[in-house]
């Protein structure tokens, strides 16, 4: 008696596994709502993600697992999340140039539409702090239109979904103390040193 089930199972192991890619076609069809990729940096690997409108996420992979970041994007932006390194070539190139000291300002578009209210105002004010300069929590609160909301400004910065590109590392405590940093204080120090603001 032939064990047909066993025969099928064994034959299936020989079937090809090299399936064609999906992301490129998804992009052509306008279905790639969130493209993401891993990018190497001196601060460890980053996950970067963009919508067709612009950057929505930069995350330190050693600080927060990639799965968690992707789940958050699926919830917050769209579940159509696919790995598509080619869609992030521009982001990768600008980050490389920045970390090599050859770039001071990011030109890549940012998609602000998934940020709302005061958080968005604070992060936009932060994005306006130039390379080689710093501000304070009180300073960005004021720039965001609510000078007394210093603590809320701190919370908004702590929830910055695009560190490095939206330079929340340039926001310090009044009096010059570093304050906090999502991703760890040593990363904030590294970035400020890179920008010549810390010896």
């Amino acid at each position, binding site marked *: 008696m032939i064990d047909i*089930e066993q025969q099928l199972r064994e*034959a299936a192991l020989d079937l090809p596994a090299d399936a064609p890619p*999906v992301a490129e*076609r*998804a992009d052509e069809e306008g279905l790639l709502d969130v493209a993401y990729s891993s990018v190497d940096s001196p601060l460890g690997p980053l996950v970067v993600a963009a919508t067709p409108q612009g950057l929505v996420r930069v995350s330190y992979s050693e600080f927060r697992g990639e799965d968690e970041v992707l789940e958050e994007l699926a919830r917050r932006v769209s*579940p159509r999340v696919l790995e598509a390194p080619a869609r992030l070539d521009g982001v990768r190139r600008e980050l490389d140039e920045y970390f090599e000291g050859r770039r001071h300002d990011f030109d890549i578009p940012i998609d602000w539409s998934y940020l709302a209210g005061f958080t968005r105002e604070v992060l936009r004010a932060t994005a306006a702090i130039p390379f080689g300069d710093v501000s304070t929590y009180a300073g960005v609160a004021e720039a965001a239109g609510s000078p007394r909301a210093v603590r809320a400004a701190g919370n908004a910065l702590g929830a910055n979904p695009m560190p490095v590109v939206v330079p929340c590392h340039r926001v310090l405590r009044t009096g010059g103390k570093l304050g906090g940093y999502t991703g760890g204080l040593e990363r904030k120090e590294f970035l400020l040193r890179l920008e010549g603001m810390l010896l």
Partner: protein
Amino acid sequence: MSVNLPPFQALLDAHRTDVYRFLVATAGPSEADDAFQETWIAALRAYPGLRRADNLRAWLFKIAQNKSIDAHRARGRRAVPVAAVPEGASPPASAEGEDPELWARVRELPAKQRTAVFCRTVLGMPYGELALLLESSEDAARRNVHEGLKRLREELTND
């Protein structure tokens, strides 16, 4: 109402190889690549509208089955008799692995039996999930597996 759908990439990572093998087995190696892309594009298109996040595999294979059936029809329409393989010629390095003959026989089964046999035997899919995929009762799913296997067994025994 909102469901927490996993990022689509997680679905792709979990099922890409199984879906591809399913399509090679049931639609044929020359149709598999197109059917595979069609499957995932259709899934991606419908994905944000899903109301439930359980049974995603059954949902996905239902789409794959439809694309496999489409590929069958398309091939049927342009069916051309294939020239006999010259005596002694070794078959081309097969895109179907070691046993193209077996998969050719699977492709001769009715659509539901093809799906049932592959999903049950190769993927070990529970009958409840298979019933969802086939949009049938569990009993009917069981029968499709049974009938398909029986026919394959008979054909191979008669050879």
